[in-house]
């Protein structure tokens, strides 16, 4: 959480008009890159992160000291092979890993911006990250890729910049946040705001942190990332370090202990206000509404190739919602492939070791790269 992170940053001097009406300028975008940009600048892949992700896609995350959030997908000899591709990932605006967000220090006051930070949208996030492509002087990306909120950014990116990516891979996402999605996000926000240490978002002024609220938000959200079958198989009714129930409210069950742990490690790396702002951005996402109710219109200017992926046990962004994207693309004759991957790991499948997903994704990216390069020659 902005603990003097030694991260790569650019300062965007171009003013950016946000959807809420406010304008921001001279704001930082923190990013990380992997692999080498080739001389033709034709091998760049922009990866968008999900709600609690960051720019550290692969390798060791210097903040958490854990593997990058997409280590199964990005890296040397991984599906997105950094021996071949130049991978860029930026922390979204609103985030807390060095990009402009509520925990950014407001220079004149020396205090965090807190809830004076403007409401941002997926559209704003994407427009801000586009500045990074300009910074690298990349005329056209080979691909834009992302899962969950990262997938929403993929869709928004192609809609905003129809000729800036040859390939788009939205994974386990939606073109419009559903009532259920909004409901879960609201639950998380209310947990944070109910924490007396939240202080209307200005907790840092009082050297406080709404850790309890943020942990509960994370616990609730974490359940939505798993599947019932996955939970049952992994935890069942197994007890945590004990032989019998203790008749109290300690974590008797392994699942309780697991969720408490997930909550506790999350608060060490994530800012509560960022959680509020980013979930809000997701809730506001409705790409078809941006195009007067016709999702196809979002893509009618583009020649970008699409590959949509969903997972059988993902009930947060179910196959039906991913399929709506495919249908919208088909109805304008766009070049779109689609597969639903069999997995019982729920929404989190896109982050985990799901071999058929990793193989299909890697093979598809590599053979498409080859075909596109051959055609150019």
């Amino acid at each position, binding site marked *: 959480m902005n603990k003097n992170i030694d991260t790569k940053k650019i300062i965007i001097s171009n003013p950016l008009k946000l959807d809420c009406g406010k304008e921001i300028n001279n704001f930082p975008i923190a990013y990380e890159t992997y692999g080498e940009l080739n001389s033709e600048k034709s091998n760049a892949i922009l990866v968008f992160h999900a709600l609690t992700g960051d720019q550290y896609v692969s390798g060791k995350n210097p903040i958490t000291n854990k593997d990058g959030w997409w280590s199964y997908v990005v890296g040397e000899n991984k599906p997105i092979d950094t021996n071949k591709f130049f991978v860029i990932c930026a922390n979204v605006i609103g985030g807390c890993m060095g990009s402009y967000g509520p925990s950014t220090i407001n220079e004149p006051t020396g205090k965090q911006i807190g809830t004076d930070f403007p409401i941002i949208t997926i559209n704003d996030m994407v427009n801000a990250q586009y500045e990074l492509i300009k910074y690298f002087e990349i005329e056209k990306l080979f691909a834009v890729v992302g899962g969950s909120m990262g997938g929403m950014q993929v869709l928004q990116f192609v809609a905003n910049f129809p000729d800036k990516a040859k390939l788009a891979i939205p994974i386990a996402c939606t073109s419009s946040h559903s009532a259920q999605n909004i409901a879960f996000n609201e639950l998380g926000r209310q947990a944070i705001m109910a924490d007396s240490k939240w202080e209307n978002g200005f907790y840092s002024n009082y050297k406080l942190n709404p850790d309890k609220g943020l942990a509960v938000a994370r616990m609730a959200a974490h359940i939505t990332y798993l599947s019932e079958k996955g939970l049952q198989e992994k935890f069942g009714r197994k007890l945590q370090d004990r032989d019998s129930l203790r008749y109290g409210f300690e974590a008797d069950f392994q699942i309780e202990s697991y969720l408490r742990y997930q909550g506790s490690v999350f608060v060490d790396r994530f800012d509560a206000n960022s959680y509020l702002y980013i979930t809000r951005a997701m809730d506001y996402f409705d790409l078809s509404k941006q195009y007067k109710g016709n999702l196809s219109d979002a893509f009618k200017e583009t020649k970008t*190739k699409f*590959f949509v992926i969903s997972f059988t046990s993902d009930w947060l962004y179910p196959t039906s919602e991913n399929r709506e994207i*495919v*249908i919208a693309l*088909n*109805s*304008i*004759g766009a*070049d*779109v*492939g*689609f*597969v*639903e*991957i*069999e997995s019982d790991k729920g929404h989190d499948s896109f982050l985990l070791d799901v071999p*058929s997903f990793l*193989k*299909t994704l890697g*093979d*598809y990216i590599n*053979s*498409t790269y*080859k*075909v596109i390069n051959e055609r150019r020659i």
Partner: protein
Amino acid sequence: MKEEFNIISNLIEENTRVLDVGCGYGDLMKFLQENKTKDIRGLEISKEKVQNCLSKGLTVIEGNAESDLKQFPKSSFDYVILSQTLQAFLNPELVISELLKVGKKVIVTIPNFGYWRVRLQLLFKGTMPVTENLPHEWYNTPNLHMCTIKDFYNFCSSKNIKIFKSIALKKSRISEINKSNLNYKNLDSHLGIFLIES
């Protein structure tokens, strides 16, 4: 298989837009990509086959022709191909009408149940026919609605579907089917290939 691909390829004009319904492992798509047109899509119901196609870089959508053809706009493809799959649908009549909406022209190939080898098995052995082209037993066959070349020919005329070209295949011998030789071709061919339009 190769003869069938050649015949289909010869029916298709270059650089047109093609959809292969029930594209399997994408062999026909690959063949057409190399010989006729780059602009080719596939629709396939099996996850494993879809993943295999995508791994090869083919543009394939996982879906069911009986419910998912609707999402393609009318006449959005120059050709829609249905290769040896018609008999596996619950409702072949519906599928044909959907194909004719999506494609300006439709190519349908059918394993001919009227082929004499098939007929002889039922007649003399008294068991459901198992041949090179129809390798399944009655209890595990995916084929729900087997038909003959003559059946399909008659189906087209009863539904006012125009047949542009109808070709019979026996081993690697290719011949045209017409009204006068229909009974003979129905007996002597293992595969029928039809180019139709609504």
